């Protein structure tokens, strides 16, 4: 995203094009240049805390007046609440509502991190597998544990497709089992991959802007990609959340 950096690179080496599309994903310490230990405050910390601040502003500060006739910000907060609540209720039914704060946390974090990542020169935390894999694993483990706690061994019925012919069931069970364990992988890579790819593409277009003749096209392309990425930011958060709801439904009602 950092267009200035590209311009600087372009000035240094005006003859040759320089692309560093992946530099925007480097994790840097906030203070000094030392090694990155697990506790070091880094740009990850900064942008995650900004996400917390954004969520706090949107859901807590805007609703502080508890107005019957909502202000604009309050109605956005209410929309977000209603959106996720309805999604969870539609998919999981009444029992799923218990897990609403959990699902809402995931959605709000991802959507805010994605949109903060759209700010030029920002760091996009959700573009890292190190972030999305724990998110997906948390969902996977929650669903698996919850499934066994709620249903006991009956949870394994999820893999035994009783509506299929008996001969096919073992084959389907293997397929179901594989697809079950692939879930966290696809769940996490979908999010990080989409966000990373979009940001990298924008950066590549920004690299082309160093050439005067191409730069108008490049700027247009960046604009178009940016619009697409705004869409992707929301859609990926939505997809992650709706899949979480679907997986949660499997845990609550394992029968097909």
């Amino acid at each position, binding site marked *: 995203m950092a267009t200035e950096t590209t311009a600087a690179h372009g000035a240094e080496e005006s003859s040759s094009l320089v692309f*560093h599309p992946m530099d925007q994903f*480097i*994790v840097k310490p906030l203070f000094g240049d030392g090694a990155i*230990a697990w506790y070091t405050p880094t740009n990850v910390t900064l942008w*995650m805390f900004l996400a917390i601040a954004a969520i706090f502003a949107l*859901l807590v500060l805007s*609703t502080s007046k*508890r107005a019957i006739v909502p202000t604009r910000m309050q109605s956005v907060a209410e929309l977000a609440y209603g959106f996720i609540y309805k999604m969870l209720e539609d998919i999981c039914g009444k029992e799923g509502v218990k897990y609403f704060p959990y699902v809402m946390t995931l959605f709000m974090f991802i959507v805010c991190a994605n949109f903060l990542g759209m700010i030029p020169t920002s760091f996009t935390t959700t573009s890292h597998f190190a*972030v999305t894999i724990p998110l997906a694993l948390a969902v996977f483990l929650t669903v698996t544990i919850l499934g066994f706690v709620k249903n006991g061994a009956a949870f394994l019925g999820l893999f035994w497709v009783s509506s299929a012919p008996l001969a096919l069931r073992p084959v389907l069970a293997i397929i179901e089992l594989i697809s079950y364990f692939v879930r966290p992988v696809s769940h996490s890579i979908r999010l990080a991959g989409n966000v990373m790819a979009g940001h990298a593409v924008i950066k590549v277009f920004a690299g082309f802007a160093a050439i005067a003749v191409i730069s108008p096209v490049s700027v247009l392309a960046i604009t178009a990609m940016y619009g697409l990425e705004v869409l992707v930011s929301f859609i990926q958060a939505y997809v992650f959340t709706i899949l979480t709801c679907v997986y949660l439904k499997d845990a609550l009602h394992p029968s097909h």
Partner: protein
Amino acid sequence: MATEPLAKEVAGTCVDAGGSAIGMPQLCFDWFPNQIFWLVITLVVIFLVLSRVALPRIAAILAERQGTITNDLAAAEDLKAKAVEAEEAYNKALADARSEAQRIAAEARAEIQSGLDDAIAKADAEIAAKAAESEKAIADIRAGALEGIQVVAKDTAAELVTALGGEADAAAINSAVDAQTKG
């Protein structure tokens, strides 16, 4: 991903001398603990903020709004019922007033009719009296006229008899005139 940069990343060098990323920074496992640590902190904070403050508050706001809307709807329903009642009362009053007006008009008409009948009867009686009186007067006049005619006829007859050289016999003339005028 080529395997070579990955090997370097595993060795702990994710950034080259120029400060650029080697391969995908997403696969730099040196940075994983840091990111996971801060992610966990972030999620816990967000979860606490949402579950303790934000979500109950928004739920309360929505419930309160729903309550207000329900109350307002009920109040509106009440008012509507009242309006319907008032309209009925108005219509009833209107119908009453109309029947009352009709009754009064009928009474007045009856009164007028009876007065009129009296007046007509009285006028008829007067007219009859006047007519009888007139008839009597006419009969008198006619009788008077008949008598006059007889007198004139007798006188004329006596004169004629005298003028023709006869002897006027009063009794003969009288009987002759009476006989003539009777017819």
